[in-house]
């Protein structure tokens, strides 16, 4: 078999297995033992899940802890398949008109230091997350706005009472950051103790960490799931440069990098390692946008914003960019695989999604001319990260050149990028993104309304109609109706007003050593990282 035939075969086999039915791993009996080395592309400031919001915290520390409920590790691509982690009897159905959730808590679960876990620990944990005392940081407090009270009537019961019924509660509970801490630890050591110390009920125990280098963990023998974990331990190695991360997999210094590699790196790895590499791919719950700054006079005219979105060749870009960047899927405001997302027939009706590129660009030029902005010049603010920001940014500039726009790029490192975006608002158009963990479109699309905290378009108060549509969406209980409202919102935000321009949705590609088994790719790099089901076929 020639080198290239082998490459093609391995790629097809790898992708096919992973993207298809979920792999043949089910048929195999897991082997015990071994240490998994994996790469993390950044370093987290602390180990406190309630406080941080980076994957660099999730990947090394998620296996130390348990959640109340989690995404099903056997079916992580489903946005609705949740299972019990610390509860028993399945994820409960709400009572009291959707306002009360009663969880039965698993008995005999041990913390790494030997304490027994009860509903009191979960109560303390969720009180910290949802109702933190003044001066205590809780990054995702806002996810739980609907929660009224939490009670633990006995050691095996936990009851959440909501202010109003909503489908957003269960996905919020499954968010991987809700690490379960011990009530005793919180009481004795204080609320900051978990930043630097670890005591959880997860499958692995903290062993050692060297700042800037690695975090090492060993198997927890008292883990609450029988026979698990399979691994003896793992080591999370920090590596900042993409080239090193790829080479580390190639040279087998590490077996996997969970966040994902660009397509070119996947191809290179498959080419050099053949069947020793397995590739898993998935749509990713992150979308790359460009946000025109409505505060700038040149961007105030909706025709100009429409022209910018009309110039973008999304369908072609999907083909081309998916060979060099971690983006692929053409989509609207909702995660492409979700029932609430637009299908292709619905998408092509939006400006800039049409299949006749020439016509779109003609229309764009005409709109610019009508607005008196032919040959418009502006600056694109971008984030100093190669994948996918800089690559897609450079591509966008090329797209806009096709309608006669002359665009320069100002790339800033993350710290000043956010400063320009939020504080100084010093940009014409900026790259922007919306990246969430558990797929929850109704919450995630709040990004597009001007009043949202993470909306940087500076059109708060300028589009009440859009705000009203969103409020309607949040209060709608019926999925078919939700879907309709979602389409109206999408058309308003992306097409009629063109407040934001969606480029492409991210695409997660995780090539890993084939001996890593039992890990399934999820649509988010935050999800399915408990590692208890992972084993090594060596």
């Amino acid at each position, binding site marked *: 078999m020639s080198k290239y035939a082998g490459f093609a075969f391995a790629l097809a086999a790898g992708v096919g297995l992973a993207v298809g039915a979920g792999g043949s791993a089910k048929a195999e009996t897991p082997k015990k033992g071994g240490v998994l080395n994996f790469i993390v592309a950044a370093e987290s400031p602390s180990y406190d899940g309630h406080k941080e919001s980076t994957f660099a915290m999730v990947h090394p520390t998620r296996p130390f802890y348990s959640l109340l409920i989690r995404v099903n590790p056997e079916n992580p691509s489903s946005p609705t398949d949740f299972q019990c982690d610390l509860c028993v009897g399945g994820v409960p159905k709400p009572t009291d008109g959707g306002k009360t959730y009663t969880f039965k808590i698993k008995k005999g679960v041990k913390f790494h230091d030997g304490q027994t876990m009860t509903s009191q620990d979960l109560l303390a944990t969720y009180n910290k997350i949802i109702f933190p005392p003044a001066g205590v940081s809780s990054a995702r407090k806002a996810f739980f706005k609907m929660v009224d009270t939490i009670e633990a009537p006995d050691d095996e019961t936990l009851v959440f009472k909501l202010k109003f019924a909503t489908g957003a509660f269960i996905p919020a509970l499954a968010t991987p950051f809700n690490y379960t801490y011990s009530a005793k630890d919180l009481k004795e050591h204080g609320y900051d103790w978990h930043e630097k110390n670890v005591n959880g009920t997860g499958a692995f125990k903290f062993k050692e960490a060297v700042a800037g280098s690695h975090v090492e963990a060993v198997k927890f023998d008292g883990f609450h799931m029988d026979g698990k974990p399979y691994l003896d331990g793992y080591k999370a190695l920090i590596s900042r440069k993409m080239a090193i991360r790829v080479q580390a997999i190639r040279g087998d210094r590490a077996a996997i990098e969970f966040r994902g590699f660009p397509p070119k790196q996947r191809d290179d790895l498959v080419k050099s390692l053949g069947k020793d590499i397995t590739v898993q791919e998935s749509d990713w719950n992150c979308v790359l946008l460009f946000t025109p700054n409505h505060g700038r006079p040149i961007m105030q005219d909706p025709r100009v914003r429409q022209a910018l979105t009309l110039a973008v060749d999304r369908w072609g870009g999907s083909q081309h960019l998916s060979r060099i960047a971690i983006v692929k899927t053409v989509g609207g405001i909702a995660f492409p695989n979700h029932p609430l997302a637009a299908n292709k027939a619905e998408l092509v009706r939006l400006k800039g999604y049409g299949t006749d590129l020439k016509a779109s660009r003609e229309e764009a030029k005409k709109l610019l001319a009508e607005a008196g902005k032919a040959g418009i010049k502006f600056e694109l603010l971008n984030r100093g990260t190669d994948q996918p920001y800089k690559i897609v940014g450079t*591509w966008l*500039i090329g797209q806009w050149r096709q309608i006669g726009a002359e665009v320069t790029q100002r790339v800033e*490192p993350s710290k000043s990028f956010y400063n320009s975006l939020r504080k100084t608002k010093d940009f014409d158009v900026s790259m922007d993104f919306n990246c969430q963990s558990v797929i929850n479109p109704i919450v995630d699309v709040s990004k597009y309304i001007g009043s949202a905290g993470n909306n940087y378009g500076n059109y708060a108060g300028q589009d009440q109609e859009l705000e009203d549509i969103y409020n309607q969406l949040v209060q709608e209980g019926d999925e078919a109706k939700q879907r309709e409202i979602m389409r109206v919102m999408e058309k308003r935000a992306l097409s009629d007003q063109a407040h934001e321009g969606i480029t492409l949705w991210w695409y997660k590609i995780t090539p890993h050593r084939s001996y890593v088994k039992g890990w399934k790719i999820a649509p988010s790099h935050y999800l399915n990282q408990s590692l208890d089901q992972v084993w090594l076929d060596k």
Partner: protein
Amino acid sequence: MMVTVSEVQTEADFEEVAPKKPWTQVAMDLSRKQPLGVFGLAIVLAMVVAAALANVVSPFNPLQEHFDAMLVPPGTDSYLLGTDEFGRDILSRLIYGSRTALLVGFVCAIVGSTAGLVLGVASAYFGGLFDLILQRVLDVFMAFPLIILALAVVATLGPGIENVMIAIILPFVPQCARVVRSNALAIREIPYVDAARALGFSNARIILRHMVPNVMAPYLIMLTTFLGQAILLEASLSFLGLGVQDPIPAWGLMLTNASEFFEGSPWVAIYPGVAISLSVFGFNLFGDAVRDTLDPKLRSR
């Protein structure tokens, strides 16, 4: 980093030197006795020609993407050196990139060394408190490794070509000022400066007519040394994500983008790497020759 040393070295060499040769003759010496230098000069001239005629000699528009020919190897169709990840012609980007390299190199070297010349001469000529304070300020700047000072400055100003040039110029100034000052101090002691003063010539006239021409040698040496360093520093800052930004064609940027793709498509990294190395090599050979010619201590007997 490393690059700082050559200055320390030059400084040490020139501490007590007062060159006396007129520099027209120096240019003659250069071409006759320095084969390496002439080779270096040839590289530099080739760059200048490429930059000047970029729009004529480039086979493609350096900004034009060809999505049907992404990352094709050298020699495919009319892409002599292959294409990058956007299907942009690498040869054309290299040719246009020489403009950026020359711009960064010459602007940084000329501005840096000229500012150093002014400060160095002024410091030596006026002496006293002005000299004392200026020297302490220069001490402060000289206490930072070059790359770290540049990193801090560009972090403050933000990336982009103008800011990168400022960040590169800033550490150059004190280095050149130091060397010029020590040379100028020697000249200041020479009787004709006193004579000129006694004759009532203005400070400006004395400085321009007598001091400046006599420190041209160290000035030119520093200037040529800075040329290559500036190009390298720009590449290093680009690698840290702080340099020139796409879609401007620039070698450091090309090399940086290539670090994502070089495993499967080595040409994207090799050619810009060679371009940078060759140009810096050329500038350094040329600089060495200038230095050997101008430095009376090293001038062969």
